[in-house]
């Protein structure tokens, strides 16, 4: 699809779905690499999330993330990311979903995921070397499903989410929260948990 067609397609995305896509984009970016100064700056200056009589967990997690971004310097955040999620040899906290699923089934799950991505017409960019079950990649697929296919039924988002993100995100976030080396990524993990909880509840309405 060319850029003009994408722009047209984007206008068909409902505001609440665009917001979800934006949260996925942010999580994908934060889980792919430590934030740079520009991202920390815009996060620090972000508005509060309005809650309209609903659950306030997402709003308070967002407020905490915004405050953490304001207090964090980019070098420290990037060092933290590299220390915790990359490391030499085995990372302290694996950013790969299959790590948190049945260990014996990891290869099988990855193979199935690759098949699904091919079916969606997605392939890794030239610069992306990480296996496809990286949480950043999974969030990026969700963002893609929401904005690039606004006509597609949300059942497809639900199915992908339930297959790859839902069973793995809680132990992943809990590992981030339990690490003695995480600082900025603790509020990131709490925000991710709050956001995915909203996603689970909304998918439950389908």
């Amino acid at each position, binding site marked *: 699809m060319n850029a003009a067609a994408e722009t047209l397609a984007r206008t068909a995305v409902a505001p609440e779905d665009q917001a979800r896509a934006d949260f996925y984009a942010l999580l994908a970016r934060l889980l792919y690499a430590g934030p740079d100064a520009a991202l920390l700056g815009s996060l620090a*200056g972000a508005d509060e999330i309005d809650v309209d009589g609903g659950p306030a967990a997402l709003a308070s997690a967002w407020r905490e993330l915004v405050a953490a971004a304001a207090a964090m310097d980019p070098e420290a955040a990037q060092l933290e990311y590299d220390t915790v999620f990359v490391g030499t040899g085995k990372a302290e906290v694996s950013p790969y979903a299959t790590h948190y699923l049945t260990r014996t089934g990891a290869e099988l799950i990855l193979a199935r995921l690759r098949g699904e991505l091919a079916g969606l017409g997605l392939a890794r960019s030239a610069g992306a070397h990480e296996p496809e079950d990286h949480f950043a990649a999974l969030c990026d697929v969700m*963002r893609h499903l929401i904005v690039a296919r606004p006509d597609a039924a949300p059942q497809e988002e639900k199915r992908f989410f339930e297959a790859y993100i839902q069973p793995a995100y809680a132990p992943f976030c809990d590992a981030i929260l339990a690490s003695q080396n995480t600082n900025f990524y603790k509020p990131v993990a709490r925000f991710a948990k709050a956001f995915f909880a909203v996603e689970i509840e909304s998918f439950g309405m389908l």
Partner: protein
Amino acid sequence: MNDKVKLSRRGFLVAAGAGGAAAAAAVASKVAPQQPAEAAAPGDAQRRGYRLTEHVLSYYRTTKV
């Protein structure tokens, strides 16, 4: 999906703060990916269908062009 389900889901998302959140949009527009070196060539962006906007992570490219 019927309209009733669609409306109640939308209502829930908005009430929970995950719908219509200007906060997310403002930040997401600044999510400039740390470009891998080999992806930095000018003109490359136009060829990659998946790089829709400035805030795409660019982890994936679409194979449907």
